[in-house]
């Protein structure tokens, strides 16, 4: 009597895993084919594209450097303020939501879900769309920009902060609770020291993103360098557009250097 043959062939994945992967591949191909077949692309525009691109760059160069001090510098400073104030606003709004979303602090499923919904809603609506809404409320200007940056950042800051809070060690918290410390002290002396490094890194990361985002808010009237860009585009002053794009590029590079410098020093 021989023992029943043992399957000696080794597979990296179980059949269920392989089936799932195959389904994903199939679905991907189907989605891409569907999208490519039905998306509306106008062939005349496409044939024209190389000529238009060359035209774009010849109109942009040389940049209108004289425009920097008259129309761009002030808007640039405004952009910086919008991004920074927006980030501060986001911190103020996101901390309570994050506390509500963290399951180890708020022990209520309903409140957790509600907070998560707030976070998802804030992230799903783009900063440009938030800006549209706030321009309708506060009128054109930097206030709408600050509100848009703030509300858009709640989702990002709040989600990451809630995750950091949930990862906090329960030991110090229990020790503090055992001494009869009130809730505020538990937060301040138990959670905060543990969450602080990730908090600063989240804020810094979001500030970096917000500098980029606030550069385009002006396209819908929410202040900053985008207003200058919008005006240059509307007037077809491509040499000014080129200058503004170069300035935005420089600012983004400087921000990235500054944030990575701060990050390596404090974290």
């Amino acid at each position, binding site marked *: 009597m021989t023992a029943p043959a043992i399957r000696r062939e080794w597979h990296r994945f179980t059949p269920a895993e392989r089936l799932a992967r195959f389904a994903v591949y199939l679905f991907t191909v189907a989605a891409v084919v569907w999208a490519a077949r039905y998306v509306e692309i106008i062939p005349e525009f496409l044939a024209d594209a190389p000529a238009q691109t060359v035209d774009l760059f010849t109109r942009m160069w040389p940049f209108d450097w004289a425009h920097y001090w008259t129309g761009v510098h002030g808007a640039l400073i405004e952009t910086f303020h919008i991004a920074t*104030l927006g980030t501060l606003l986001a911190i103020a709004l996101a901390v309570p939501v994050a506390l509500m979303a963290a399951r180890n602090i708020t022990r209520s499923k309903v409140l957790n879900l509600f907070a998560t919904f707030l976070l998802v809603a804030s992230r799903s609506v783009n900063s440009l*769309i938030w800006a549209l809404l706030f321009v309708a409320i506060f009128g054109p200007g930097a*206030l709408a920009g600050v509100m848009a940056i703030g509300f858009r950042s709640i989702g990002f800051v709040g989600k990451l902060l809630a995750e950091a809070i949930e990862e906090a060690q329960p030991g110090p918290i229990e020790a503090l609770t055992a001494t009869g410390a009130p809730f505020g002290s538990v937060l301040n002396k138990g959670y905060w020291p543990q969450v602080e490094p990730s908090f600063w890194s989240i804020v810094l990361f979001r500030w970096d993103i917000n500098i*980029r985002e606030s550069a385009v808010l002006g396209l*819908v009237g929410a202040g900053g360098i985008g207003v200058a860009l919008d005006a240059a585009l509307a007037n077809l002053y491509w040499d000014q557009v080129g200058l503004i794009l170069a300035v935005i590029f420089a600012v983004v*590079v400087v921000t990235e250097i500054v944030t990575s410098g701060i990050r390596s020093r404090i974290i």
Partner: protein
Amino acid sequence: MTAATSSARGRSAAFPANWSRRLGYVLVALYAVYAASTLDITLDRFIRGLDQGAQFLARMWPPSFDPVQLSLLRQGMIESIQIAVLATFVGVLLSLPLGLVAARNLMPASISWPARGLIALCRSFHPVIVSILFVKAVGFGALAGILALIVASMGFVSKLFAEAIEEMNLKQVEAVRATGASFFGVLVMGVLPQVMARFVGFGAYQLDSNLRNSTMVGIVGGGGIGATLFTAYQRFDYDFVLTILLAIIAVIMVSELASAQLRKIFQ
């Protein structure tokens, strides 16, 4: 036991006050006041805005379910999804070689630095700005949005992919190399198995991100639901704006769930 009796004075407080930190908070608060005053943000304006906001919300509610508008919404949303799918597919496909080339532990510096420069360039401009340029180059419509989001996807996915490759375990690569495998063989057998799961994760995340951004490129003429939203906004159809916003949030929630599932399959 004299130490125990005199300890109350000799021992430092358990939680000493950190004055430099308090000074830092005061400086941040002063900055916020200063920046708000330069941006002409006043409490009066804010309060007037709240009044406006109440009116605005009243005009938004209830969301419109007019059949004509719903069919516009459907068209726009389908186009947004098509833009996101195509941009993710092409962008992720292009990121694979770009990320490999940009990894400093696989390539000599003379090759990896230009690739890293290209990635930095892709990342530095906001998708909306890139899509303005593409609208000029290839005309209004979905193609401009697709191209802009391809650029954004390349910047994001290839940066993270290159970092994942730089963090991988070199022993497996050496083992494959020691068998005399060609460079291509080393890539397929030594490198890709280690990083493929993370690459799929980045791709799934990018699909979410592109879907979010595809709701925005329409504002500058890049096609999709953003165009529908912007038109409704300009026509003061605020109830339809709310319908569109709710639809966007719903679609993005579904896509976040789907991409979490996708990541689980490929873990």
